[in-house]
């Protein structure tokens, strides 16, 4: 009788120990798996946005036109659409246009030679822990679009 109770206690202890290891492993697997999944989506989104920026007409009649163009590029990264409708969800949970940085590399004459798109301070909430990506992923494309310094954005 005494020995059986002792064996039952052993089983409880073993279960507690192995469950602790198992839960930790599964939590870690989820945490990294989800973070990698989100990062992969970010790489795709930033790549698509940068490719769009590289081919889009650079309309620079005023500073506002440049900013409107940049806004369209940010929307392309976040929603996969330069002019998203209100019901469109971001391609990655919690990603907002203000987290996307668009930087133009200009020649001496003001004509863009390349465009650099990156994500700033985006936090992935992986339940057990959160990871913040700053300046990554970052993609730079050469500018191959039409330079239109006198045109305005519609």
């Amino acid at each position, binding site marked *: 009788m005494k020995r059986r109770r002792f064996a039952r206690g052993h089983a409880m202890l*073993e279960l507690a120990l*192995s469950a602790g290891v*198992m839960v930790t*492993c599964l939590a*870690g*697997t*989820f945490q*990294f*798996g989800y973070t*990698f*999944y989100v*990062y*992969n989506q970010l*790489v*795709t989104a*930033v*790549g698509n946005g*940068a*490719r*769009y920026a*590289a*081919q*889009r*007409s650079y309309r620079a009649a005023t500073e506002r036109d440049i900013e409107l163009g940049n806004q369209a590029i940010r929307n392309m990264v976040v929603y996969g659409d330069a002019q998203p409708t209100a019901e469109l969800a971001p391609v990655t949970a919690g990603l907002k246009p203000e987290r996307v940085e668009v930087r133009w590399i200009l020649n001496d004459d003001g004509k863009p030679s*390349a465009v*650099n798109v990156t994500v700033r301070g985006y936090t992935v909430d992986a339940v057990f822990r959160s990871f913040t990506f700053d300046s*990554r*992923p*970052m*993609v*730079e*494309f*050469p500018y*191959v*679009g*039409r330079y239109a310094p006198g045109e305005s954005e519609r």
Partner: protein
Amino acid sequence: MSVLEPRKRARRGFVLIAMCGCIFLLLAVVGLAFDLGRIYITRNEAQVFTDAASMAAAAQLDGTAAGVARAKAAVEHLPARWNLGTQPFAGVTAEFSADGRRWDAEPDEVSEVKFARVRAPDNRLDIIFLSAVGGPLNFNVPAQAVAATNPVRLVE
């Protein structure tokens, strides 16, 4: 000498075997999430890089030898990284072609060159968990892209 009956002794060994099986399966599942996740990210990073690099190279081609040299420099200076944005691409090659079939790093007829091809052939990832359960120690994720000098403009 053990005083346990033979059946009880056999039961004691079973826990060890079950534990080994569980750890093997656990490592395989962790490996699928961790190592495969990194492989897919690398594939994506390398493809985005070669897309951008081939466009950068093609944009410099103007039918002169200087244009080809500028194209190679553009590929070299593109600030792209892989392995979660931590490692620069190594062994990147730029090749050129007049017809999209025969590729040459040093083309003879530079005035005929219309296409640039960039390859990132050596993006070797260390496999951490899957290697412990019989998978490979590392995995190479190459990528390549081709761009033309006068691309069709799809965006206004």
